[in-house]
């Protein structure tokens, strides 16, 4: 067991090293901006997959945490003038608390009702953001910028530092979640996804496991939003709009719901699509719609899921 943990750490370190070297290959600002947005979305989509793919809880309202993370972090920086690490940790705390309350209410409901209730909570946050203009700036978003004071020699108002910081948060977050799905808890999540009734008769208090999964997913979801607010130096009501949840769902399905790195691959795909398609045609929706249909009707395993499946089959065939 020990050795595989070390292997994971080595791989994570290698991934970090690659991320640090990439700007040498792609020196432009476009690339680092892309990677920063990617890190926010990859963390967010992977955290949603903990619910959707691993626990079988189809949340339509995970964007609640994206918005919450962005606004609570940005507001703390702006109004309280705290340091970044303090605001980071406080944001995680706020999200965990909100996730506990919202989760405890939502997981009592089954299937589509759960999905709708999560969506309703998210849209409630969105409405509050729009309506509470004095605090949030309403539909204009937070004005005045998010201050990014240096800490420990890290200056996040420097794009290079921000790139490194986001890459590190991405690697660490994915590492923790990867570890999590490989822990006994991760297997319990999968059991509950497959057959919650049976899990109860094994002595598993299903609602507790679901709640814990909801809280963990909420915390990482908020970190995604936090990174985005650092990047744009603001926060917008759109961060809490249902489309954010929708995009994360597409990322998961495009990459592959049954594989851990599916959402990461999906995030790369969707962001690239955004950038490329908007450049070559004005009919972005049409293209995206057709691509989405292809995935829904043809490539249901998602790209990474399909590649892994094909690879498995070839290996099995070779034996």
């Amino acid at each position, binding site marked *: *067991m020990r050795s*595989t*943990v070390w292997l994971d750490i080595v791989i994570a370190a290698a991934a970090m090293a690659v991320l640090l070297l990439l700007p040498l290959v792609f020196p432009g600002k476009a690339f680092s901006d892309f990677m920063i947005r990617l890190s926010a979305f990859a963390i967010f989509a992977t955290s949603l997959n903990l619910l959707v793919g691993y626990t079988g809880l189809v949340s339509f309202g995970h964007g609640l945490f994206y918005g919450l993370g962005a606004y609570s972090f940005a507001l703390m920086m702006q109004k309280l003038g705290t340091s970044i690490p303090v605001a980071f940790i406080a944001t995680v705390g706020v999200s965990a608390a909100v996730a506990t309350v919202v989760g405890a209410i939502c997981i009592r409901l089954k299937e589509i009702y759960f999905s709708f209730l999560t969506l309703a909570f998210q849209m409630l946050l969105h409405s509050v953001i729009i309506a509470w203009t004095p605090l949030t700036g309403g539909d204009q978003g937070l004005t005045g910028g998010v201050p990014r004071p240096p800490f420990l020699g890290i200056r996040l108002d420097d794009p290079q530092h921000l790139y490194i910081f986001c890459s590190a948060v991405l690697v660490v977050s994915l590492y923790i979640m990867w*570890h*999590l799905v*490989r*822990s*006994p*808890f*991760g*297997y*319990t999540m*999968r*059991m509950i*996804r*497959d*057959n919650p*009734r*049976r*899990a*109860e*008769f*094994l*002595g*598993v*208090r*299903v609602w*507790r*496991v679901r709640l*814990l999964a909801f809280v963990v997913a909420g915390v990482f979801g908020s970190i995604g939003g936090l990174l985005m607010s650092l990047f744009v130096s603001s926060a917008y009501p759109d961060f809490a709009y249902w489309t954010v949840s929708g995009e994360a769902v597409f990322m998961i399905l495009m990459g592959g719901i049954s594989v851990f790195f599916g959402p990461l691959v999906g995030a790369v795909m969707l962001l690239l699509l955004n950038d490329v398609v908007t450049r070559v045609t004005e009919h972005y929706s049409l293209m995206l719609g057709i691509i989405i249909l292809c995935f829904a009707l043809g490539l249901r395993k998602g790209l990474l899921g399909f590649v892994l499946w094909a690879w498995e089959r070839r290996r099995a065939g070779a034996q």
Partner: protein
Amino acid sequence: MLTVENLHKSFGGVNAINGIDLKFDAGTLTAIIGPNGAGKTSFFNLITGAFAPDQGRILFGTDDIAGLSSPDIVKRGIGRAFQIASIFPSLTVRETILGAVNAHRGWHTKLRRRFPLGEANAQADEVMELVGLTAKADKLSGNLSHGDQKLLDIALALALEPRVLLLDEPTAGMGPEERWQMIDTVHKLWQRKQMTLIFIEHDMDIVFKYAQTIRVLSYGAVLAEGKPDEIRNHPKVIEAYLGTAYEKGRG
């Protein structure tokens, strides 16, 4: 060990369980028989907390467990397997059983360490050995044959080291040869683990050969109970049940 007093449960207008009093002594092997819809599965459901009874007591040892949640009841030492194998299709056999072992030991919410925990491995191996699934340890549960899925369902319950084990038609849907193999396995388990075993069964040959005592349910009530010989010749049982089912079991 397990005593049921004046148990009642109705679903809408159906009185699925209509006043059952039964006692199961520690270490015994009991068969429950009865026509379709007699309330056998419902009886198990009440004991394991799938539903709370409308009325009555369920004493496990000296504690009344009626109305407790399923996890609470399971944790006290009552395990069950289902009429239609209830498993986790996307997990392998080993993962499934390790998951059950983790749940039993309260490790199933551990976040920090890797799955499987080393200590759980030995027990999982033992359970797979007991039911004869060792060779299929790394197969996906969903891809197992029907019989193996039933075995896996039982193995899940065994991983909890129950003091009372409830098996709902362990031989359902199997061919004659497979049935005898299955019941043989179950019988060996009972001997080795010295637990209280209650199984529902429609095949009378199996019932008469293996059960120490038999309880006959009909319309949610106990029609008769006794040793196999007493039941075989019990006029009410023959009338209500054996006449048709005995033939069916053979044919």
